[in-house]
């Protein structure tokens, strides 16, 4: 089997912030009762991070592992791409017999990173109907929303960068949108 490739093979473009496609990321959708101790333990065991709060994300120090709150009954488990199947089996074994659903969705998604300063907020604010003021959105929060015409989610690993998750099928559209919104000299300077 040929090697797995990410949607845009790491394409990048520099505007007033840098837009880059992040490459392969292992992702497991875990659905079930998020309040159940077994489910929390399984998610924590697979990633090494604690359960996030509602609409939050917890990221491991090295950045490869994370747990993101997607919905009242849905968790996004982020793991290194090469380990996704192994971690999935681990979760499924831990929750056998429980009313849960765990699926490897790594190849169904695309990730983008915006970096280069607090202006990354401006790029997202141009595309999403979300209050991007520093007081309203910051690191540790995970927001699912609409990015122009497609569903997407984003979070800030730190105050100067942004990670955007979308479906792989719309990766090229999202990349073009982000590049356009980040075009040189197009800062709005509303939030920053």
């Amino acid at each position, binding site marked *: 089997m040929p090697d797995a490739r990410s949607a845009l093979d790491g394409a990048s473009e520099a505007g007033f912030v840098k837009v880059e496609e992040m490459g392969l990321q292992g992702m497991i959708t875990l659905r079930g009762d998020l309040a159940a101790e077994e489910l929390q333990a399984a998610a924590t065991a697979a990633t090494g991070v604690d359960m996030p709060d*509602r*609409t939050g994300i917890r990221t491991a120090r090295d950045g490869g592992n994370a747990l993101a709150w*997607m*919905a*009242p009954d*849905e968790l996004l488990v982020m793991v290194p791409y090469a380990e996704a199947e192994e971690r999935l089996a681990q979760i499924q074994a831990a929750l056998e017999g429980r009313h849960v659903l765990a699926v490897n969705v790594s190849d169904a998604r695309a990730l983008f990173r915006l970096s280069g300063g607090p202006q990354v907020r401006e790029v997202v604010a141009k595309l999403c*109907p*979300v209050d991007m003021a520093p007081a309203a959105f910051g690191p540790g929060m995970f*927001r*699912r*929303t*609409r990015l122009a015409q497609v*569903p997407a989610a984003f979070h800030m690993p730190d105050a100067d960068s942004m990670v955007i998750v979308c479906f792989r099928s719309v990766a090229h559209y999202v990349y073009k949108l982000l590049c356009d919104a980040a075009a040189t000299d197009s800062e709005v300077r509303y939030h920053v």
Partner: protein
Amino acid sequence: MLMLTCPNCGVTGEESEFAPGGEAHLKRHGPGSSDEEFHAYLFAKENPRGVHFERWRHANGCGKWFHAARCTATLEVFGTYSAQTTEPPKDIKDKISAKRPGWSWREVE
């Protein structure tokens, strides 16, 4: 602009993040009901100028359904509440009464 707060995830978003689901608290008339009841269930919808109850789905967010009480004339949202209810809860009705004294909607008041 219509701003809704999803009671399932707590996110306050703009209308385009949500999908409208029509009138709330409809009683389904299916097999065994009269033609009049079935016709009313399908077609006789409220279209008020003022207080209205609707179903919404957080389509581009957590994906869950919920109910919203709002004013169709001003887009003021009186409150949002769980989809798992058959009538508006008392606290929502009290909020509406405080702002729109004498309001009524179908048999709710």
